[in-house]
């Protein structure tokens, strides 16, 4: 089964999505009727304090979790109704992932990790793909480290390998969940610049969850969540302004 790439301007979409954890008196509303579009070719940051529902939002967008109510699309494909196998194929062919940590399969080398999504689909790596991946590796200074295993790489290098893997298949969307959460500030800046660059140069759509105002300031668009709803939806903004916005949210709480 292959899933058709999409032509619309939005890469992903939520329509009145709610998510409740638990039932009865102890239940928690993580998302409360959220609707949003992730625009194609843009770098969107999803921000919010801990417990604001931002990770749940990303997991639902990526088909890793199912909503309690509402509908979810990736491009023109409604993924809320897909079964596990179909959803897995969508993830494999049309999504890329970068997590805070535990991004790489520990038993595979950096190169094997990068080409894993191709192998899983039994897809041959074409000459063009290879050139694309090797170009990415070279520009990120990883060319010499491709035969290394994850534990032999620094945190920043591991994260760059994860980003290359996410970019390798040129997916519809890359989902990044706190990609700089485990990195020092200098490496964080490099990783963020890399994501922003992928978006600007290759038109790669990226949705990033973060609680870090500096990370958010690299994005074209910032969505701010609090208590399961979107409170702000703003364009590119400086880290200082994002911080001020976050602080005002805290003060209002």
């Amino acid at each position, binding site marked *: 089964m292959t899933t058709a790439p999409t032509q619309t301007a939005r890469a992903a979409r939520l329509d009145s999505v709610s998510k409740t954890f638990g039932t009865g008196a102890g239940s928690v509303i993580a998302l409360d009727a959220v609707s949003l579009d992730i625009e194609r070719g843009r770098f969107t940051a999803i921000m919010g304090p801990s417990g604001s529902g931002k990770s749940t939002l990303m997991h639902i967008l990526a088909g*890793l979790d199912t909503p309690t109510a509402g509908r979810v699309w990736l491009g023109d494909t409604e993924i809320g109704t897909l079964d596990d*196998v179909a959803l897995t194929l969508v993830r494999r062919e049309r999504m890329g992932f970068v*997590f805070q940590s535990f991004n790489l399969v520990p038993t595979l080398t950096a190169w094997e990790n990068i080409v894993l*999504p191709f192998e*899983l689909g*039994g897809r041959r790596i074409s000459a063009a793909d290879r050139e694309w991946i090797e170009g990415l590796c070279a520009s990120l200074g990883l060319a010499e480290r491709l035969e290394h*295993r994850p*534990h032999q*790489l620094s945190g920043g290098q591991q994260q760059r390998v994860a980003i290359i893997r996410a970019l390798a298949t040129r997916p519809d969307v890359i989902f990044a969940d706190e990609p700089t959460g485990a990195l020092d500030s200098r490496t964080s800046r490099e990783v963020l610049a890399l994501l922003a660059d992928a978006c600007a140069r290759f038109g790669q759509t990226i949705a990033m969850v973060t609680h870090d105002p500096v990370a958010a300031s690299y994005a074209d668009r910032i969505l701010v969540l609090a208590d399961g709803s979107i409170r702000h939806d703003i364009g590119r903004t400086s880290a200082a302004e994002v911080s001020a916005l976050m602080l005002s949210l805290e003060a209002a709480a």
Partner: protein
Amino acid sequence: MSVQAPDVRERPVRAARAGGRRGGAGLARMRLRDYRASLIVAALSGAFGAALVIGTGVMADAITANSLSSKDSVKITVLVVASVFFAIAVYVSAVVTANTVATVIAGRIREIALYRLIGAASSRLRLGIAREGLVVAAIGALLGTAVVFVAGLVIVPALVAGGVLPEATYTVADPLLIAPTAVTIAMGFLSSWAGSQRVGQVTPIQALGVAAADPTRRMSGARRVFAALFLVSGLVALAGGVVLGLTSPLGVLVGLVGGIVSFTGVVMVSPVLMPALLRLTGGLLGRGPVGRIAAANAVRYPERSARSMVGVVIGVTLVTMFAVASSTYVQMMLGIGDEHPEYAAEMDQVLTMTLAIFSGLFGFSALIAAVGLVNNLALGVIQRGPELGLLRTLGFTTRQIRRMIVAESLQMTLASTVFGVLLGIFYGWAGAQATLGAQLGQGLVVPTIPWAVIGTILGLALAVGVLASLAPSRHATRGSAVAALSAD
């Protein structure tokens, strides 16, 4: 206890002190699932020991009821044979328990690191784990002994009434029953201590879990030296047993010690040895992504693979050892039968009975090994939650994950079965030689290898390996990938 209301400020201190005194207080809350195998193994070992003591006692009573030979000398002879079998069962239990503890600890590195971070000494943690092993073994051993004791109280009179046993005074409540129970409990403590060796290498920083874990830790120099020492001294003792066995029936005891010590050496080098074996079988899994990742997983996590494989190796070694020893024994006896045809019929009867009894006795140890095997495969898969969650996120379908786990299991079972068969042939020959060399006076003989039996062992081991990995593979793909990814 003070009558006054306790000073609130003092409470946490007291609680902390109490926790400290208990040593591995936190690890004391290890889940029941972690103990299951140790408990079953201790119960089996206790029951087996009790059955051997009661059985030999009753046998001695029965024999002396009909003859003039002294009860003590009969009993002592039978007891020596029985203790050889018990020693093997206890040894297998110890390996299974140590292996289970090591597996559980490998899955709890973060938790242990956290205890280290807040100031727990690693020796304290290990002592705590060993104490838990003691308690679990005590419960299991007492339970097993009690069941067999009660069964003995019912079965012995029934056998007398049924005419199977002659009329005599039988003692089921033999004071010797304490021995196997005590040995099993001590084994629980020692093997848990041995299995917790890894705790000493956990550093507090690992609690933060930032760095990617290095699955290919090299064996420490001291461990290499110990392993070599065990292997060499064990083999020397085994050879001594074989040579001594040519002239004395005591050869088997020396050989037993040699066998146990040298096999312990094999277990110790298994993290180095097993990946080498796995490389040989890895190619069988095919070139697809599932097969290739399965092969890489098995080879590149040497410790994890070794832990899963030791259970298979020990079980297969035991069964093969018995099959080879008994075939060699039968071959030796047939040789005598040809020379003295007048004894042939009687000997045939003795042979059949001895083999039946011995298979039962060996089967018990194999059962203990199987418990370890199944449990270890299951624990291994459960601990890989985050890794499997990542693969699912990246696009492994549920079926691909299951196929990968079954493929890994198949590869490991095949490699360890072949290795176990080779070891079993060697140990079986040495055992037969050390036990019977003097009695039969034929010098050194060539081992007789029952190919049909070995083929069956191979088939059975592979079937058990695959079946044992099916349940955990289903467990691994249950629930959402995100939950698995963040599980620790």
